[in-house]
């Protein structure tokens, strides 16, 4: 076991786990941050996505000891009780069906919009292509990303 310190959603946490433990299980089981979910454990589906230093990262294949920098989970993107514009857009467009994958959809979209506030349709399709939804809400996810991009732009104006 190793003592590992993580900075998550602005707070520091210390855990004592095997260094090879995937970050996903530390977040879910030790830190009680259950927004990221187990979908495949192989980095293929995206349900476990968190943002580390601005990059959408698959926490199921990221050893906890390899994390350098600040982690943001789904629970950490709303500020002062106010939903992030992406979350708001997700509600406006009524995106989720079962909702199990939506953590990955939202966090992948956030990392994309943070880097590229005006993605083209093709860029959205390409960036989101490895984030799977088994209820097939893609059509609404893409609409919500465009809505969020617009409202984030308006908020800056």
């Amino acid at each position, binding site marked *: 076991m190793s003592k590992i310190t993580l900075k998550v959603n602005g707070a520091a946490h210390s855990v004592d786990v095997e260094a090879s433990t995937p970050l996903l299980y530390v977040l879910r089981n030790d830190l009680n941050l259950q927004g990221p979910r187990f979908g495949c*454990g192989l980095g293929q589906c995206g349900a476990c996505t968190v943002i580390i230093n601005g990059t959408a990262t698959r926490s199921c294949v990221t050893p906890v000891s390899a994390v350098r920098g600040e982690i943001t989970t789904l629970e950490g993107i709303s500020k002062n009780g106010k939903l992030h514009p992406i979350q708001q857009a997700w509600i406006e467009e*009524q995106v989720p069906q079962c909702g199990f994958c939506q953590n990955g959809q939202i966090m992948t979209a956030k990392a994309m919009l943070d880097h590229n506030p005006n993605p083209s349709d093709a860029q959205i399709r390409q960036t989101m292509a490895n984030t799977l939804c088994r209820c097939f809400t893609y059509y609404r996810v893409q609409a919500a990303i465009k809505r969020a991009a617009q409202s984030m732009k308006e908020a800056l104006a």
Partner: protein
Amino acid sequence: MIPKQIEEVLTHLDTSLSRRSFLKTSGMLAVSFTTAGAAAATTASIAAPANGPYPDVDYHQLDSWIVIHQDNTATFYVGKTDLGQGTGTAFRQMMSDELDFPFDKTTCVMGRTDLTVDQRGSGGSDAVQTSGWAMRRVAAEARRVLLEMGAKHFNVPVDQLAVSDAVIHVKSDASKKITYGELIGGQRFNVSLTGNTTDNTTGVAKVKPVQQLKMVGQSPKRYDIPGKVDGSLKWAVDVKVPGMVHARNIKPPFAGAKLVNIDDSSVRNLPGFIKVVSKGNYVAVVCEREEQAIKAATLLKVNWEKPASPPFPTSEQLYDYIRKAAPTSSPKPNVAGNPDAAFASAAKIVEAEYEFPFQGHTAIGPAHAMADPGNGQMTIYSNDMKSYGMRTGVSEFLQIPREQVRVIWMDGPQAFGRTAADDAGFEAAFLAKELGRPVRVQWMRHEETAWDTKGPAFTFKARGAFDAQGNLVAVDFTARAADHNHLGYNEPDSVLLAQLSGKRKNMPAPGSSARPDDMYGIANRRIAQEVVGLPVIWETPLRTGNLRDPNGPQVTFAAESFIDELAAAVKADPVDFRLKLLSADKTEDSGFKRARSIAAVKAAAETYGWDRRPSPKSTSKGGTLSGRGIAYTFRGQTVVAVIAEVEVNRKTGHVWVKRLVCAYDCGLVVNPEALKHSAECGMTHSLSRALYEEVRFDNEKVTSVDWKTHPILTHADAPEKIDVVLVNGDPNPNRSDLAPYGAGEAACKPTIAAVANAIYDATGVRLRRVPFRDDRVLAALRAAGLSAV
């Protein structure tokens, strides 16, 4: 009896605690946490009914369904589960309407076997069309009782009272008013209901005519969505209780393998190791922490013996196998007219064969459950869509009284029939009993993709006969399904744990094939359905179960592809050809399906902007070929027509379904926007089944084990435009008794055929084997001389 917790709400919580906080905690998420282990013990010690702490909820008591609180809010308790298609929101709309209650002052508790009446959970798209009627009737009955109480309170006859938004007032003097909460908040109705099943439950009151419904037909946003977006919803995967440990399964590496021995020493010294548990061919390892259990399951040495002969053909050999196999069942074909004579005198005969693979659910989250034993009870936290069936199944499997078992349904990954036969719940309960500790079971991705229940593979043979004038006079259609020993439900002798541990039904479940819908007025028909079995039908990853609209997409793919082939054979426009067949026979059924079918086909064509011409499109140039196809079907009383527009890449064979149009007539619509959402997702699910999905296997194991070996449709292939148009094709569209017909599955059904027909329209190439993967499409284009370099 009325559940203890509802009783407590009525007698204590309502006056001593914030009612708001009760409403919050009863809204499906927190109750399950506050009532884990500890509360179970409390309930047991206080209630102590004869056989256990969780007696069946008495559906003949109004109090089991509806609680009205002093602050004029209401909680509805219903025996269904919401798989993300907005049924919970629909229940609240329907019950609010009948009760005259403000929608936003209501909450809904679903699927907890200890708190809600047994309406079987979800399945068959019956939530609104079947179970919804009981909900409406009990809400109407509550309204009637409240009005009687109001009449007594104001000392006037009921007919001098009016009610709106849960406030009763005297018609002649609006200042005389009283809220439902003031009349009954914190008290029991003590009203008995009748009806021989939960779905037949009724009081004295009648439901309102459609014209008086206010919330039904509106589109309030789904209440489950905010918690799914901000991370606050607690899912079945999230449940933790003190002392909980983690289990992982070790599946047999070959179908039909026998366990020889287990070498515990391979994992005994791993940190956190607790125990290896095995029963027959079922093996699991239990550890303190989740990652420890995953590692132990990987390292545990288990010796298996292969079966003497291969359990199944390879996926490449499958269709030959199905065609040659002796049927395990072949009911007498459905025959109308004289098909033999019609074929004998036909001017033209068209023949085709179609093939459809095994397809999996491959839920985005693998199977999981947490079971908490002790204090003479077993609580299972599960996303089982049929939580009531699991309760009964687990009690029988573990041989403990039903009254000691409860299943707390919580949200989970898309189910579509997979959790009707919920393996993980049984495994968690079994392991929890073995260890005497709370155990969480989580399947890994390779287990779920390989070993979940499969929708059956099919072969189809179709023949059609035309007379000299080009009229379709006969059809002969045979559907053959590899579905022997189909498992549908949470049966204690057919879930995977039971099979692996040696429990068997006396007879395998016969399974079923399917028949195409017969609204088309074809005078002479022979429709045959046959079932075949694979060599190994127990302990196999190719076990069949219910997959969204069981058998519907398969048979409709073949039947509606064939109708398109027949249209092309006489150079008829595909829409015109269908409308002519639908109009040929004037007989109607009680749901006026023929009239509604014609309306749906016309509405789809109009919404799409259908250009009337025969398929295929004659001018096809350039790198991509485009085309459109239609397919129509019905499911129960629901009628649906789908049009797909495709682009086929001549270099790669890739098919992109650019646009979808769906015309949907499912009778009374409770929440139009939620219905459209459900139809969009259902159709896109079928696009994935049309273009990508196929369970692959060699002759000893399934080789589709993850998202690389079992690819599905991604964002890259999402349609650019989807239109869902809701149709009311009832000959009397304003009827006051318009019924809802069920909407969760029908849109899936015709979509695969619509895609096949669109590909044909674009290319002139007819694809008769699903899925239409790039390599298959390219090979077909090459064979037709249509590929581009």
